[in-house]
């Protein structure tokens, strides 16, 4: 006799970094069927935007997610630029590309670490987190923030690439080329990690097509899909990008979790190459079309129409649609579709035939969007309790140190 029982994974679960519930019907350890119920963290951000002007919404969109914040900002800005026909200086396009790729590196590293944590491989998790610190420091050097950079604005960017930043990024590229390969080998050649990720959460090529999977999730199933290639935006017009698919590197694309891991890891190398090309090709010139925000607001007040912004975020394609009404200060309506929204539809397919032990890994394997802004400093073994004011002071001090005394010191503390 076989009886099934139902177990919820989430909304709050150690293995998940965002609140989502998967109701799993189990037969022993085997998953018979799965029902996913999001909505625990719906904040009505699109509704909030109706009472804010476009420049305020830039910073609102940045707070959709802590990890791919710049992707959302870029998507929103491109949607508004699309409807208002704003042009962007070439230098700004290159700087946007730089930050997009830096964000991809940090997002993929974070994901690789979390995937290791989910299978109980804590050592690799800590190694991944440590590797990620370097790109976080570069982003802090650029903008003063580790997440939510506040870099982009309509018609350009707000921060220029200084020679110091140029040097820091090049050092970072060298660092990753040296340090990242051991991490990849530790995880991908580990027998236990292979046993846990191979043939788990399989999304076939056909299912990936049907369910409109995007980004690394689709590419791991063997689809050559990458918006940086199929509709080159910003500096990708000058920098050719080929989609990373497992069949080019291994014998075949299986569409399992290990393939998703491999695709993300290989994309880190690709991002490093893109970063190098973007730095080499960085053109001179202004980095913003119109620095006076009031003038921008006035011109946007006159604009009328719907715009569509779509870019390749680290997790897949990010879509924003915006409507501005002529004569109205505020955004009339705004629709955000994060990549997870598209990939989450495939969860029930991936769960089919797997085990309870795989469930958190499968949920994490599409890299669900996470608001992660933790930050901890330990100075020696007797750090004691640090108050919020003290922590803020130290954060600022670290940024000053990074900018004043150079890059190495900030990392090798």
């Amino acid at each position, binding site marked *: 006799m076989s009886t099934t*029982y139902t*177990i919820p994974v989430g909304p709050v*679960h*150690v*293995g998940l970094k965002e609140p989502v519930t998967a109701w799993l019907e189990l037969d*022993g*350890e085997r998953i018979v069927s799965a029902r996913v119920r999001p909505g625990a963290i719906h904040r009505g951000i699109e509704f909030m935007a109706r009472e804010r002007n476009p420049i305020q919404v830039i910073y609102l969109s940045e707070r959709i997610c802590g990890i791919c914040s710049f992707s959302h900002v870029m998507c929103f800005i491109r949607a508004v630029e699309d409807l208002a026909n704003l042009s962007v200086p070439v230098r700004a396009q290159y700087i946007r590309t730089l930050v997009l790729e830096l964000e991809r590196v940090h997002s993929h590293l974070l994901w690789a670490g979390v995937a*290791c*944590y*989910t*299978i*109980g*491989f*804590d*050592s*690799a998790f*800590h*190694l991944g987190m*440590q590797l990620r610190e370097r790109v976080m420091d570069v982003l802090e050097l650029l903008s003063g923030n580790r997440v939510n950079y506040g870099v982009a604005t309509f018609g350009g960017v707000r921060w220029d690439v200084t020679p110091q930043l140029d040097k820091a990024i090049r050092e970072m590229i060298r660092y990753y080329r040296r340090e990242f390969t051991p991490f990849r080998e530790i995880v991908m050649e*580990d027998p*236990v*990690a292979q*046993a*846990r990720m191979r043939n788990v959460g399989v999304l076939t090529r056909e299912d990936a097509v049907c369910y409109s999977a995007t980004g690394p999730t689709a590419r791991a199933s063997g689809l050559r899909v990458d918006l940086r290639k199929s509709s080159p935006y910003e500096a990708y017009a000058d920098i050719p990008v080929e989609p990373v698919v497992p069949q080019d590197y291994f014998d075949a694309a299986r569409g399992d979790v290990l393939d998703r891991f491999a695709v993300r890891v290989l994309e880190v190398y690709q991002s490093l190459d893109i970063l190098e090309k973007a730095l080499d090709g960085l053109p001179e010139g202004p980095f913003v079309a119109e620095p006076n925000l009031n003038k921008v607001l006035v011109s946007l007040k006159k604009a009328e129409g719907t715009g569509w912004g779509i870019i390749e975020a680290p997790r897949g394609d990010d879509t924003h649609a915006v409507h501005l009404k002529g004569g109205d200060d505020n955004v009339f309506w705004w629709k955000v579709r994060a990549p997870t929204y598209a990939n989450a539809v495939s969860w029930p397919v991936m769960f089919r035939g797997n*085990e*309870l*032990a*795989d*469930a*958190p890994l499968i949920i994490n394997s599409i890299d669900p969007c996470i608001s992660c802004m933790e930050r901890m400093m*330990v100075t020696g*073994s007797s750090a004691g309790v640090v108050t919020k004011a003290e922590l803020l002071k130290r954060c600022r001090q670290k940024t000053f140190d990074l900018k004043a005394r150079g890059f190495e010191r900030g990392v090798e503390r």
Partner: protein
Amino acid sequence: MTSIFILCLKIFVGVALLALVVVLALLFDGADRIVHARMQRRVGPPLLQPVYDIVKLMGKENIVPRRASRFFFTLAPWLALVVTLMIFLYIPVGSRAVLGTEGDMILIVYLLAMGGVVMAVGGFAGGNPIANIGAGREVTLMMSYEFPLAMVISTMAWVAYRSGMPGPPFSLETFASVSVWKAVGEVGDVGLVCLFLSLVFIVPGEIGKGPMDIPEAKTEILDGLIIEYSGVNLALLKLTFALRSFAISTFVTSLFVPVSLAGLLGVGGFFVAVFDFLFFWVKVFIVQMIFVTLMRTSFGRLKIWQASQFYVMRVAGLSLTGMILLSLDIMAR
């Protein structure tokens, strides 16, 4: 008169030893966490963190779920702790065990298994489906590693019996006093290495850590077995986990690492007991670092069927190889 005196002495020594063992187990657990953290390039908690945890939990409310079977749910942690503590009475610290003549290796293995069973019963009694899964996994895991473990122990006893090591073959004191490595030839040594390696893989399953922390897998089933426990009950379980790691380390040490510091230094008389007593804990510490800390740092977590398959196929095969090699060695005499 003498027997009463010996009984009193044994009770006194036993109580003192158990108190020491509890303190040491918690300290070793703290050291394990620090070394684990350092291997991951972290700072790690203070050495006394496990003690703080236990003290804190002792002051917390003890909640029994409404749907739980209250009797078994509350009994399980106590029984698990008592059963685990009893193991130390049969393990020779230095050269003699407190109750060395009353119990042997088979009893120790049974006590270890009983600790696991009791915790599984507690998990089932909690009425939580996640705890049920955890308990089911614990039992599955136990059924998988018990066979290779039994094979290792019976082979060792057979070696002791055939090679003429002094003392009863199943008694741990026999192995603590005479090195088993010297009792066999070169082929036998290879066989012993096989058995030793089998134990390296069995230990994580026995204590539920490292690649075999499947019954408690926190990112999958949220600490499974112990999910419903709180307060004093949880403190007892945490203590039991620390003690189980410690107990199995002392067991392996007595069986395979009977190196005597007094013997090495050539000290005689009264100092033999003192030196060996102190040195024993050093050996246990090293064994625990290798068997527990290194293993759990190096590997991720397997799935239950993978772990089961690993024990029934690979580890059983390895211990069988050891058994055959040792048999060949002894038969060839």
